[in-house]
């Protein structure tokens, strides 16, 4: 049974034209790490706050462990939240911050002591228990915020972009800590972020949102390899998927697509024929674009001119101009590439890794 069930959850703010969250439906399974991913304003934080009980629900039902909790106050929902700004009590010591929620729930003193010490130990806060938040570094404060949630032993953990206030290096290490924590506790966690790397590395499932609506839900690799539309396709992956506008010509049994001045023939075993003149978008990830024609496998070739070369050390990112196509095509190639800006070359596109999207941006399904 799902721990948290959202059934067409909607939030409309007073005097707003559009809902901030629009009929969001989602099942979060027990022990799952569900990431709500999307750009700013997509409704992910609103949804999280509705689950927490910090925002009222305009329409739809929210259930936790089978019980409808729309009207249940936040403190009775057995959830704990880690806020973006950590929201530590500035006038209390770390120890009091950790113990506060438990004291308010009339838990035995000895039990509170035990839990606080244990959590402080796990998170490396033991030496900081008597300090006040203003005397802590950003990373330490974040850990206290985390500790405050863990010590409550709630049914569901909620995270509101907890890593966004940390510097890059700390973000990476804390990400790892969070993943370890999830494995250890086996708790149900719902995590909001706009960072797709966090989503990919931490989530057991990702729920991508845009404009208040759920766009796609699935395991990270699933969503990465089978995006439901161009939005998801472009959102995941860095550099993002190349989206090349094209037109079906009708030739070769409807499998030819014209990209700029070049044409590509799709493999017939994967794709159904396309009506002549149909506008399609070809999607291919930079890692599936190479400068050499590999042996074996189906590859489409496009003549290109190198516009930009970014040497990253471990690999090289190329931006290439395809005649007739406005946007440069990004390609991820090995560090041994010798191509320079201005060089003319031929790009190979791995046909088995190609995506097709219709005029509305939705993915066209492969042939069964």
């Amino acid at each position, binding site marked *: 049974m799902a721990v948290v069930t959202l059934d067409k959850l909607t939030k409309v703010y007073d005097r707003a034209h559009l809902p901030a969250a629009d009929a969001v439906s989602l099942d979060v399974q027990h022990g799952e790490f569900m990431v709500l991913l999307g750009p700013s304003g997509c409704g992910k934080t609103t949804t999280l706050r509705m689950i*927490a*009980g*910090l925002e009222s629900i305009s329409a739809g039902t929210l259930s936790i462990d089978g019980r409808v909790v729309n009207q249940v106050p*936040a*403190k009775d929902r057995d*959830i*704990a*939240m880690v*806020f*973006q*700004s*950590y*929201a*530590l*009590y*500035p*006038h209390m010591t770390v120890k009091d911050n950790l113990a*506060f*929620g438990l004291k*308010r*729930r009339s838990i035995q003193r000895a039990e509170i002591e035990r839990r606080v010490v244990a959590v402080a130990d796990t998170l490396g806060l033991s030496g900081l228990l008597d300090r006040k*938040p*203003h005397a802590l570094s950003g990373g330490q404060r974040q850990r206290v915020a985390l500790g*405050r949630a863990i010590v409550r032993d709630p049914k569901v953990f909620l995270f509101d972009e907890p890593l966004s206030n940390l510097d890059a290096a700390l973000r990476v290490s804390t990400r790892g800590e969070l993943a370890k924590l999830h494995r250890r506790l086996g708790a149900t966690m719902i995590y909001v972020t706009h960072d797709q790397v966090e989503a990919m590395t931490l989530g057991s499932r990702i729920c991508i949102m845009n404009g208040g609506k759920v766009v796609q839900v699935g395991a990270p690799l699933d969503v990465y390899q089978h995006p439901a539309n161009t939005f998801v396709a472009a959102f995941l992956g860095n550099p993002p998927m190349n989206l090349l506008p094209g037109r079906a010509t009708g030739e070769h049994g409807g499998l030819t697509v014209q990209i700029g001045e070049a044409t590509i023939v799709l493999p017939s075993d994967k794709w159904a024929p396309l009506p002549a003149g149909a506008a399609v978008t070809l999607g291919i990830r930079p890692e599936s674009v190479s400068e050499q024609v590999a042996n074996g496998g189906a590859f489409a070739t496009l003549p290109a001119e190198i516009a930009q070369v970014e040497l990253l050390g471990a690999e090289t990112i190329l931006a290439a101009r395809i005649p007739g196509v406005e946007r440069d095509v990004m390609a991820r190639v090995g560090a041994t590439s010798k191509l320079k800006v201005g060089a003319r070359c031929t790009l190979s596109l791995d046909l088995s890794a190609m995506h097709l999207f219709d005029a509305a941006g939705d993915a066209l399904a492969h042939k069964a």
Partner: protein
Amino acid sequence: MARDVMPAGAESLREQGLAKPWGTIIAFLLPALTIYVAFTAYPALRTLWNSFHKVLPRREEAIGLANYIELARDDIFWRAVRNTIMWACTSPLVEVSVALVLALALYAKVPGARFFRVAWFTPVLMSYIVVGILWLWIYNYDWGPVNVALRALGLGYFAMPWLGDPKTALPSLIFVTSWMWVGFNMVVLLAALHSLPREVIEAAELDNCGWGGKLVFVILPLIRATLLNLIVLSFIGKMKIFDLVWITTKGNPLWATETVSTYVYKRAFEWTTFDLGYPSTIAAVWFVIVLATVLTLTWVFRLREKLEY
């Protein structure tokens, strides 16, 4: 806090021995400092000097500590001190606590909060003279709203000459200043409440705090500095009070509302002895008392402790 604004090429200027633009500094400060010295510092020192003299219209006579000795035995002075300090101690407590209740009411997102805020602030804007006259009428025995209302409710027994009875005169005046300043305190507290970090209060919500819990464990501790600040401000203000008493009771009846400021005025300008030395002594002693009490208060409240988040 002060920034260093060095002229361009400061290095070379320093070599010339002109590291700071003293000319400019003096030019900017001179007008303010001149006025300060002429109308504040010098008069203060002169008052102190006066206190050791008999200062009559045409001559001055050094009398050492005679004024101070007389002051120690001056019952009226000590009565005035008692009245003023009682005023300065009760007012802040009333003003700040009522203001806190009102601020919390508005903070709870009551409709029309903006209107209430503007409306409640108005008493503070009026001159004490205007306020005094209005309340003279409000407290009027025959037709003032207070007594009229009491009589209308059948509580005519309680109707009395509020400002004329030694027992009720001072409390009645304290009520008036509270009426004035509650609005001010409320506005300040409301601003302080609105500046509290929203997420901390939400965290308290999740930590099983209802309205009471949030108030006691989160809100009050976080606005403590502002509360104490308002108490000190109110205290200082009441120690200085003059206008209101002067226009309503002038210290009557029977010194019940006499404050140090009214007493000084009377001794300096209304007593027939024309001696300015004695009132100067009162001023000097009062100055020390005010300074001592304010410093004690500040120390007790430890207002230097800042809350950083």
